[in-house]
């Protein structure tokens, strides 16, 4: 008997079409798998009843010949940052504990319309602030390859659920690497699309000018299918692009012959783990063998990316998180001593330490007298970083880099040193600052048995190329089909 939970989304889609399996059967298997992996802390909410009902509805549609497309009946799950009507949404925070949204995010609406079976909400760092999912207010999540290590973050639950075969694909959000970094640490594929490619409506904002929604999946083809299911203009998001969505599958198998692959010299420096560096270098050679040309390029402002990112992201966050004030929804702690004390008590109890740290940083960066020196200057550097990439893409078609400087670290390892954790984003934040698409693809394993990811960065709107480049490597290697021991 086929264990469908170990198949890819594309395989399941075909299996459902061929009536080899029903949505109800596979959804039941997924729910069982979710139960098995409970110790990993991937899910914050499992909607077993709702999922079974959606699966039954999908099977009924199929029986009557009204299939909604390749995702119809496929069990998927959402990072708990997406608003789901009638289903609790916490964003990993106590301040939203018990909050049941009155509306669906645009991407959730699209998945529902596509017939996806939404099995639950995935764990994350509180308000997407973190690189380890240790900053979830409810429970830290664990890496399925080594439960003493973190799965990465902030979309840690999204990566675990895909990696363990609990669901066939998930959505995450990526503000500074929050899709790509956990994808790399858990050995799955994760894509952050171009800023504006996917609607942010109904996605709880961390840093609005950097946040972007994207898929995590078991392989590149599944990633392409999931991107197609969410990409496109949304009139409810004024920053979403009103431009056509190409077919992400059409040229997926076209290879890389003649393609110029840029290798930024600033990314291969001290601080890069030896095993990670070797794996990425091996991938470079593999691409050369496949007919691509390697070009060394320079991104001279790379050293400023982390500082720039943490000024802009925290500034926007300090404003975005002001609405959690205890007045309209979520937690309210009212000691009965007036408005100001209600604010202090609510926000003091509702936010975790990392969130408070970033709100304070951002508030400071925007303060009168400091604005120009911090936020103003960060915006200027952001422009310079974006220009670095524009110049690079005059010489190359794609960039190949490590996703993270090191494989998964141990839980608690960076707990007392936020700056060290911030450095985990060093290779990923630039793509957010420049609004570029970036994909993390498994490219090796450490001797200790941890996944290594490499990052493929493209120019604006070049997701099809990024996916094609990833697919060319994946076809020749088996890292993406490896499953964790758990």
């Amino acid at each position, binding site marked *: 008997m086929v264990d469908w939970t170990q198949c890819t989304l594309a395989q399941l889609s075909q299996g459902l079409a061929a009536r080899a399996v029903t949505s109800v059967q596979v959804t039941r298997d997924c729910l069982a798998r979710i139960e098995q992996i409970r110790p990993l802390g991937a899910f914050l909410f499992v909607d077993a009843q709702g999922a079974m009902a959606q699966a039954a509805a999908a099977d009924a549609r199929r029986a009557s010949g009204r299939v909604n497309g390749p995702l119809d009946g496929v069990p998927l799950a959402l990072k708990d940052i997406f608003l789901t009507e009638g289903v609790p949404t916490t964003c990993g925070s106590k301040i939203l504990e018990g909050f049941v949204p009155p509306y669906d995010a645009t991407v959730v609406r699209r998945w529902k319309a596509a017939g996806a079976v939404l099995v639950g909400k995935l764990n994350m760092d509180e308000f997407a602030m973190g690189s380890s999912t240790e900053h979830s207010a409810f429970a830290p999540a664990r890496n399925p390859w080594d439960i003493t290590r973190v799965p990465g973050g902030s979309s840690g639950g999204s990566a675990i659920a895909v990696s363990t075969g609990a669901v066939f694909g998930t959505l995450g959000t990526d503000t500074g690497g929050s899709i790509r970094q956990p994808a790399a640490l858990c050995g799955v594929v994760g894509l952050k699309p171009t800023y504006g490619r996917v609607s942010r409506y109904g996605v709880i904002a961390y840093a609005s000018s950097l946040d972007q929604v994207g898929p995590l999946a078991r392989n590149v083809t599944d990633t392409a299918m999931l991107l197609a299911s969410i990409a496109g203009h949304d009139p409810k998001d004024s920053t979403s692009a009103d431009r056509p969505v190409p077919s992400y599958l059409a040229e997926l198998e076209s290879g890389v012959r003649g393609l110029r692959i840029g290798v930024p010299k600033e990314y291969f420096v001290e601080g890069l783990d030896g095993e990670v560096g070797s794996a990425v270098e091996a991938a470079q050679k593999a691409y050369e063998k496949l007919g691509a040309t390697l070009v060394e390029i320079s991104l001279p402002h790379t050293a400023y990316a982390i500082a720039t990112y943490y000024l802009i992201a925290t500034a926007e966050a300090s404003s975005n998180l002001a609405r959690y*004030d205890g007045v309209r929804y979520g937690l309210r702690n009212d000691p009965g001593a007036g408005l100001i004390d209600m604010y202090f008590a609510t926000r003091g109890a509702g936010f975790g330490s990392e969130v408070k740290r970033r709100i304070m940083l951002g508030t400071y960066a925007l303060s009168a007298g400091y604005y120009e020196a911090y936020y103003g200057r960060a915006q200027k550097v952001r422009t310079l970083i974006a220009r670095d990439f524009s110049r690079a893409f005059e010489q190359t078609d794609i960039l190949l880099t490590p996703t993270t400087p090191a494989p998964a670290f141990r839980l608690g390892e960076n707990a007392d040193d936020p700056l060290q954790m911030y450095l985990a984003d060093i290779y990923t934040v630039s793509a957010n600052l420049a609004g570029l698409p970036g994909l993390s693809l498994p490219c090796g394993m450490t001797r200790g048995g941890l996944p290594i990811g490499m990052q493929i960065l493209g120019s604006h709107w070049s997701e099809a190329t990024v996916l094609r480049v990833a697919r060319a490597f994946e076809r020749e290697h088996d890292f993406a089909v490896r499953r964790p021991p758990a």
Partner: protein
Amino acid sequence: MSYEAVIGLEVHAQLLTATKLFCGCRAAFGAAPNANTCEVCLGMPGVLPVLNRRAVELALRAAVALDCSVHTRSQWSRKNYFYPDLPKGYQISQYDQPVATAGHLDIELEGRTRRIGITRIHLEEDAGKNVHDEAMAGRRSYVDFNRGGTPLIEIVSEPDLRSAAEAAAYMRSLRRILRYLEVCDGNMEQGSLRCDANVSIRPEGEEQLGTRTELKNINSFRFVEAALRHEIVRQTEIIGDGGEIVQETRLWDSQAKVTRSMRSKEEAHDYRYFPDPDLPDLHIESAEIDKARQSLPELPAAKSRRYVDELHLTAYDAESLTEDPGVARFFEAALLHHANAKALANWINNDLARELGGRRIDSLHVTPQSLAELVALIDRGTISGKIAKDVFAEMAATGTSPGTVVAQKGLTQVTDTALIEAAADQAIAANPAAVAQLEAGKANALGYLVGAVMKQTGGKANPKLVNEILRRKLG
């Protein structure tokens, strides 16, 4: 020493759009609390703003009417502060790149025209309203978000105003323009037009500005002048006593008729403005700006001037007629039916204005056509001015046309000289005392006799004829 006041006004005008600035909720006054709200204007997690272009059109119209430079590119910024009526914890506004700058407004006061600079006009969303439960002795408050997210323009003047009276004239003039443009209904009591004032004083002839205070809560037209006058006196007294003005925000207390300190400069908010990352820059094509300029209606000042120059109305009548664009429209429509501008102006500014009592002129039974007909009946001598008052009352009450009222009630003026002569003879015979007085040179005794004739004819005799006939008979 004599001091002069230096005043700048910040006026918030609620735009007359059907829906809110960043969502599709209705922007209407008077609905049940929180009836006009949605996830966006309640600041739910995950929501994003989508600009209502209609609000931009109205802001643009105001900007060109106030001779501003309109910027083809402006920017949305977030103004951050905590308050329960502000759902997102920030207000979407415009900060260092507003939609329009550098305009002006001419005001007239005691026959003098003064040009007041407009520093800037920017668009922003309004906040909701906190409602304090009096029954709970202030221990519980509610928030009504119906107003939250409705579109406003803030019009900031230069500190060019020199007295409370000038400030009031500026407000009147500005309100009149906004109403003409159908940009804002100008209702201060309902809060659709609001005014904050920056006030300082300095010795006459001094260039340097004194320390200013900001006056808030001037929520009625009557309060503009009263609040400023009070604040100017307060500051003059402090400086006269050798004191210093504290830079602070003060609230006008309309009950006690004083201003009270609300917060000092040290307590002032740091709003941490920064560009709103959820909204692209606001672009307005120069063709759109040109179109707005070309499609401006005749503005009240020009209209008023035309009434004086071409229709020979008094300045007072012209001002009264042009105060409300609906009234001016009514007047001009009536004029098309009967070209007696002076008489129509009198009727509109007196009888019709009384009848109006705060209602909209187009909700009355009296129409431009029926009022014109009434004046025509007087001008043709069909009815007297006195009878016309009764006819008007009937028109206003029932909507019957003046011709019909006159016909139904038999009010047509008696111009039959034989009939009037008979009545005159009777009056002379019945009032020998009055006749004697008249003969003794007391001219006003004629009035008594005219009255007697009118009474006898049921008020319908043509008073001019009655006069003539009595004079002839007693001459």
